[in-house]
């Protein structure tokens, strides 16, 4: 019994392949002010990237006929950005065959999940870094996201977290 308990505990872990943190190739990221409800390859380099212009108020582009204004955002010092993917397992590849023809259902289900479920669903699996980044572009609809954008507030979090969780001096 003892050993099977230990095994159960192991199954509740997602292992991060450390070597991929060094081998990850630079990735280009854009945070868009709209939700595209799919996860799939897209010809970003054919339609989006070539249309980006440097305007008087920062970067300009359009998406689906709407005008976007953007700005570069740096990853806070002391942090590195990574794009991570779960490593494929045999059974997952098998499952994908069933999804044919019911794509929409499957995707909607995925969107209803809380974000942490993405990690939990695949417990006892391996996750790897596929790309790294030190900055990304944040886009706003018609106006620049500006300093009040919530993403900026989120990016101050690591420095506050460091203070909250730093060891306190003893007596």
């Amino acid at each position, binding site marked *: 019994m003892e050993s099977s308990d230990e095994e159960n505990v192991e199954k*509740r872990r997602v292992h991060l392949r450390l070597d991929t943190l060094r081998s990850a190739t630079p990735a280009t990221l854009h945070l868009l002010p709209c939700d595209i409800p799919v996860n799939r390859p897209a010809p970003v380099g054919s339609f989006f990237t070539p249309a980006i212009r440097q305007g008087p108020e920062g970067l300009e582009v359009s998406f689906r006929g709407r005008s976007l204004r953007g700005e570069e955002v740096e990853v806070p010092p002391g942090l590195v950005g990574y794009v991570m993917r779960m490593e494929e397992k045999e059974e997952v590849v098998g499952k994908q065959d069933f999804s044919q023809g019911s794509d929409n259902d499957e995707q909607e289900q995925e969107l209803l999940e809380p974000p942490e479920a993405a990690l939990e669903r695949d417990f006892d699996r391996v996750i790897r870094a596929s790309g790294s980044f030190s900055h990304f572009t944040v886009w706003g609809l018609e106006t620049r996201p500006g300093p009040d954008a919530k993403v900026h507030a989120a990016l101050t979090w690591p420095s506050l977290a460091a203070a909250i969780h730093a060891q306190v001096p003893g007596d």
Partner: protein
Amino acid sequence: MAGRVEYGEGTDAQQLVFLLPECLKDASKMMKTGLMFVKLVNPCSGEGALYLFNMCLQQLFEIKIFKEKHHSWFINQSVQSGGLLYFATPMDPLFLLLHYFIKADKEGKFQPLDQVVVDDMFPNCILLLKLPELEKLLQHVTEEKEIDKKKYYKYSKEKTLKWLGKKVNQTVAALKTNNVNVGARVQSNAFFSSPQISSDKEENYICYAHGLVSDYIPKELNDDLSKYLKLPEPSASLPKPPSKKNSKMTTAQKALAKVDKTGMKSIDSFFGTKFFEKVGKI
């Protein structure tokens, strides 16, 4: 099926956008494995939360997720819905240990550590026992006895409040260095409000810092901490957030403003609302 791989960039598998501490990249030179995501208790709510655990260097990181409505990523030649941004930041394991010590305190006796940190729901809590210098950490929140060279511990509220007071103080210092506007109430709409009400009264900083620290301790202890810090009763000074804070709000922001935020925790102000609502329901 064939259409999916036409662009050559992987499949439609989910991609997660993470911000990780740089030290993990450096650590990857020395070790090949030992970094993993585990589910452990959230010391404030008692529910589950995700953490990143470094087995080799014995470090604990908490995972926070930034989520705002109507966002998605372009990642190289692919689209990723949701626009989530995952943060891994160092976590003081003492907050988690404290959760177990407060629970064990109902028995009111000195106990060895491995009898305190026990959890059927989150069996990975045994990882906490592997952390270095645990004995030194525990001095901040427990009384200890040594019998036959084995250590026994008991929760001490007095010591804990003193420790939390120091936590609040060092958070106040960080708020000042980072120029965080503490004039407004700590709520998600604090970041929508205009900076003109900026006030650098010390009490505001302490209130704000207390709000941040309170997300790591149970509610009962939080009330004691308020008294310890001599803060005004929180409910008395809490103005109801106006439904329309800013005329420049987008449709998405208006939708967010309608959400009932009364029970929200302060750290939510750094992240989206949706994720935390969902967690609350689990």
